[in-house]
């Protein structure tokens, strides 16, 4: 009689969560940063949410990212409630870490891209989170609505307002740039 250990299975291939996390981790972390008060909290938030969801659904091999977004959102609310008001006030002051810090700082991230991100940072938080989930989270309006507990109409209108504002704030620059990248990045 020979008893197999899980290590024998482990030798076959890489755990599936790693490839999943490599594919979705960046956009989830971006969303977590918007929900948290500082980058460290954002990582804690993402870790907690991801582990909870993966324990529930990881065996399926493919977890819908929307579940993790929702978990991040709800955990963020829980965590905020657990802090006392004074702490929240103090942390809100330091909460404004700029959005561009959450993006790649490669050579190709030129001044224009930084300007766009600064413009996104100026958006009201409720519009910014919808925009983030739609653009970088690649969620549908329906998924965003379920993540943020909002109606489909509210989500769609916030998204539209956000884009309108961005376009108003940077009209000249957009028109001056006829060769905007055509490829959608694959995160």
């Amino acid at each position, binding site marked *: *009689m020979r008893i*197999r250990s899980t290590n024998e*299975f482990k030798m076959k291939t*890489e755990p599936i969560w790693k490839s999943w996390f490599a594919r979705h981790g960046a956009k989830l972390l971006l969303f977590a940063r918007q929900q948290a008060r500082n980058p460290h909290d954002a990582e804690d938030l993402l870790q907690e949410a991801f582990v909870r969801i993966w324990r529930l659904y990881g065996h399926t091999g493919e977890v819908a990212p929307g579940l993790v977004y929702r978990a991040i959102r709800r955990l963020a609310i829980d965590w905020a409630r657990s802090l006392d008001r004074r702490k929240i006030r103090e942390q809100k002051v330091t909460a404004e870490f700029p959005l561009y810090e959450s993006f790649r700082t490669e050579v190709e991230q030129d001044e224009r891209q930084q300007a766009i991100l600064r413009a996104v940072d100026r958006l009201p938080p409720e519009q910014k989170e919808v925009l983030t989930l739609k653009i*970088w989270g690649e969620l549908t309006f329906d998924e965003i609505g379920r993540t943020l507990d909002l109606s489909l109409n509210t989500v769609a209108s916030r998204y539209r307002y956000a884009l309108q504002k961005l376009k108003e704030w940077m009209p000249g620059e957009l028109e001056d740039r006829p060769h905007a990248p055509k490829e959608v990045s694959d995160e």
Partner: protein
Amino acid sequence: MSEFEDLERELKSIRPKAPSAAFTARVADALGDSADLSFRRISNEVDKPAAGGKLWFFLPPSLALAASLVWMLFFWSSPSGSEESTSPAVDEAASLAGRAEDPNSPIHGVSLDELEAHSGMPTHGWSDPQVREFLLDRVDEGLIERPGYSPGRQVRYHYLDETLWMHPASNTRVISTTPRQEVIILDLDLY
């Protein structure tokens, strides 16, 4: 939404930072056993021999069980059973009594002394059986819906129960192994 097409495309072209290696390692630690659970599924799906291997895993105890059943049938139907062979059923007094009372049983009307003489194995002096269970595998079978209850997560445990009978005087050992499954449903508190 076509008026914003360029803007959307441009926004999408800016890619967020990937999580650091240190953070990924932290997540790996936090996942613990859950990482292995999902890993096993992939292994089974991608690697067919691995699935076959799992079946092989249950083959020896199944074969042993089948062999002992066949042997028991042979022994009970043959009054001159092999003297060197052993049977795990010898010490099962209750089962024995039931068979002895059954007029259709091959041991009906056979005394214990006669049985001992036929089987070549002692009928008295056996130690209490030692029972051990081995956890072989744990398979997370995913979510299940239960009418009137919250959804549950079904986990199936595969065990191998081993029973050892020992007869110190004759230094005889009889081992029986039986596969067993247990299904546990965990209530979910979904975030």
